[in-house]
């Protein structure tokens, strides 16, 4: 099993979610996050007050997938989240040792 964490532009979220669901991803965790990579923020002034915009809004998707879905999911995220501009985000993959469904204690890929 692999954990996919994807940090994407909020404006791409609906398209990414829909495409992932269509390719068979059944569950995901979504968080509203702020952060920055190389795309640094800026300061906005409005009516004499300064507003720091150094952490930009992003959406973080997290899903644990069986190996056979991982490549497809990554390709789907790349295809649907990309605008070609700085700030499109990142995808991180990592190994997951075990999954356990709390309700019936089923383990492994069946618990996903």
């Amino acid at each position, binding site marked *: 099993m692999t954990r996919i964490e994807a940090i994407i*532009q*909020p*404006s791409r*979220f*609906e398209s990414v979610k829909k495409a992932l669901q269509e390719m068979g991803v059944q569950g995901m965790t979504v968080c*509203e*996050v*702020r952060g920055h990579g190389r795309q640094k923020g800026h300061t*906005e*002034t*409005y*009516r*004499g007050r300064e*507003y720091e*915009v150094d952490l*930009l*809004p992003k959406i973080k998707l997290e899903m644990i997938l069986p190996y056979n879905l991982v490549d497809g999911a990554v390709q789907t995220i790349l295809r649907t989240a990309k*605008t070609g*501009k700085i*700030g499109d985000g990142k995808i991180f993959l990592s190994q997951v040792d075990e999954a356990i469904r709390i309700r019936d204690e089923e383990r492994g890929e069946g618990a996903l």
Partner: protein
Amino acid sequence: MPISSIGSLRDYYAEESAKIQSEFTATSNGRKAIAERAALVDNIIVELCREHLVADGSRVDKLCLVALGGYGRRALYPHSDVDLLFLSDQAAHARYRGVTRAISLPLWDLRLKLSPLNRTLADCDKLHGDNPEFNISLLDSRFLAGDAQLFAQLHDDVLPRLIHRERHGLLSNLAELNGKRHEREGNTIFHLEPNLKNSPGGLRDYHVAYWVARITHLRHFLTAEPDSIWPPKLREEISQAFDFLAAARCFLHYRQGRDDNVLTYELQAEAAAAGIGVKHLQNIAPADWMRLYFRHARTIYGLSTQLLDEAQPPTSWLRGWYKDWRTRRSQSNYTIANGRLSLRDPAVLRDGGQLLNLFVFLAGNGLQLSRETENQIGEILQRPAVPIPNLWGRFRQLLVSPRAADALRAMHSVGVLVSIFPEFAAIDSLVIRDFYHQYTVDAHSFRAIENIHRLRQSKAEWEQPFARTFSELEQPELLFFSLLFHDVGKGMSLEDHPQGSLQAVENVFPRLGLRQEEADTIRFLIANHLEMSANLMRRDIFDPATVRAFAEKVGSPERLKLLCLFTYADIRAVNPDALTPWKAESLWQLYVSTANYMGRSLDEERFHAQSTDMQFVDRIMPLLRPPVTEAQLSTFLEGLPRRYVLAHTPEEIATHFRMSRQLNDNPVQSQIEIRGHLYVLTLLAIDRPFLFAGISGTLAAWGMNIWKAEAFANAAGIVVDTFYFTDGYKTLELNPPEADRLQKNIQEVLSGALSLETLMRGRSGSHSRRPPKVGVPTEIRFDDSSSSHSTLMEIITQDRAGLLYHLSAAVANTGCNIEVALIDTEGQRAVDAFYLTIGGAKLGPGVQEALRHALLSEEQA
């Protein structure tokens, strides 16, 4: 029913229980099912008593079995607890210990959830601060078996005396328990998965109302019929609500096989399909079934809170008297008790205007209606509706009052809102059945209005930008009215709900008599109320193209403020967690970017007949009489900032065009009108030095306080200036012809016939400078990048009388020309932007420094 063994008792109980369940399944009559189950348990307990008590006649003396709580009320749900009191007198107490066990064991063997309780009469005769539930459960006490005289002592002597003696204590315990329960349940009837017993509006609230009625009126305690204690006019409504809730709770117990009262999402669908609580068990959609639930819950919630409030003693006699005296001073028609309003003379309600005034008063004073007044209003609404004079004036006042949402809820609850606006009926208790929308559509709309009013008291840092923006609104009533109607379309069979809401307000407008631009603003807000959310979620708000397109769609800064606040209130009213700080920050970011774009693109974005979308010209042309050619209109518009076109209605632009055609006859054309609480001076003239300073100086000399101003010029050098001001000394209000003299003065000052200094000297004595309440440090910023040919100067400073004159005079004295000006006031802060040129070019560093020096010197003068 002879009981030969526990086995036959179990068979009897199972058989009878199955019959009750089977009848419930066939009829969905919850009221009957719970009464029959209570009777079944009665039979068993009486039989057990016969076996264990009557066998030794002497043992019956001074002991009786009493049903308490729901069982006492003959309302025993399929899996509810059976509360059983073994009541004895002090002397016999020890003698009967074994009886409790002997009777309880077979009941436990039947798997009844029996809670036996041994108490003496003396125990029942005191207030239990540590166990208020016991006192309250005694209110439902019912004789089952044993010493009938002992029970009569309890019911007819001990309890009435206790109620009489400890009335306030009982009520206060009840209020505290009720408050804690409501708090645990989020103080709202609106839950996606309500608890039929404990949620506000659930069965526990019904019981609370019942107990309050019995405590406050001893005769209700002594009569056993529950429904007879309700006011006759409400009896049917309350009875229907109880029947629905009882049926739904029975359904849940049978379906779950335990005392589980949570109406889960899945079970809502099952109950709706089975037609639980619905006439003829009709299968209906889950959303419609939940609509019924919320309507009934609203009835029960209103009843319990009202009875409880009315029963509470005033916190202080003196304070109660003072509040009543204060109310009488302001409104002789009403009396107030415990925050609830009653009418001195109900006949005043026959006047529709007085009826609406009543709710305006509630909105302004944070009061609720007494039950009696609700009934009186109910009677009035039976008569044919009569038109309400000055409907918008009155309703406007209600909407801007701090407790408007509560007043609207009260209006809706008694039927007045739908009586005035029948269009609102479409969303009465309408459920949007998903995991996102927590409230019914009507409740969502009231909550959205409440969210805006709450900004006044908000201390949360992240809300401050929204709170400031709210305080700057010119006509907040337009925002509130739009929020009230924005989702009415959800109750219509249209795919696009804003379109339905627009249809509804179009019906309403003729009754309100709004001005054209007011109606346009409401139309704009309703039609575009999802626009800002859509941009937040589906567009890159840091992309200048997104900001530009959004700014074009919104048009003017005032509409941007309204839409931003609308979006804030709307999202926040979906569920308590819907507006995350993340979303709020993004919303504010989009607002700031758009507002800055509007302000800083002014000089660049101009009308050019060759390249501009001419659609809006088509809307102005029919308004021009006598007709003119498109080329003539385009010549007037050529070179004006796009902001001018977006910020003015076609009617206003047509008026400006007509005024421009008369400049040959009189080189200064002006008019003054009233819009809301502001006077608006529109002036057209050929551009000249000191023009802006001359107008602002004359207004200052007359004691007018300028709130906002705009100055735009077209390619032909015709300046269109608009000044929004208040008349603090009521000069124009008390003497309307003075408006003509003010305009004459302006013309004389601009033509040089009258010296502004003379005019200002003549007035200065009467308009002395007041010390500021909050100090605002002056900030001056020059920006050469926003425009290709002019320098943007932004100045933020302490607002004061004559400020704009002094600023614009300093600009003119430095030899600078005002290309565009945008003047605004935010409380005590003046926020002004001037696009300046000198000799047709940007200001060099030297001129910028000289101007900064001149402005700061003026401030210190």
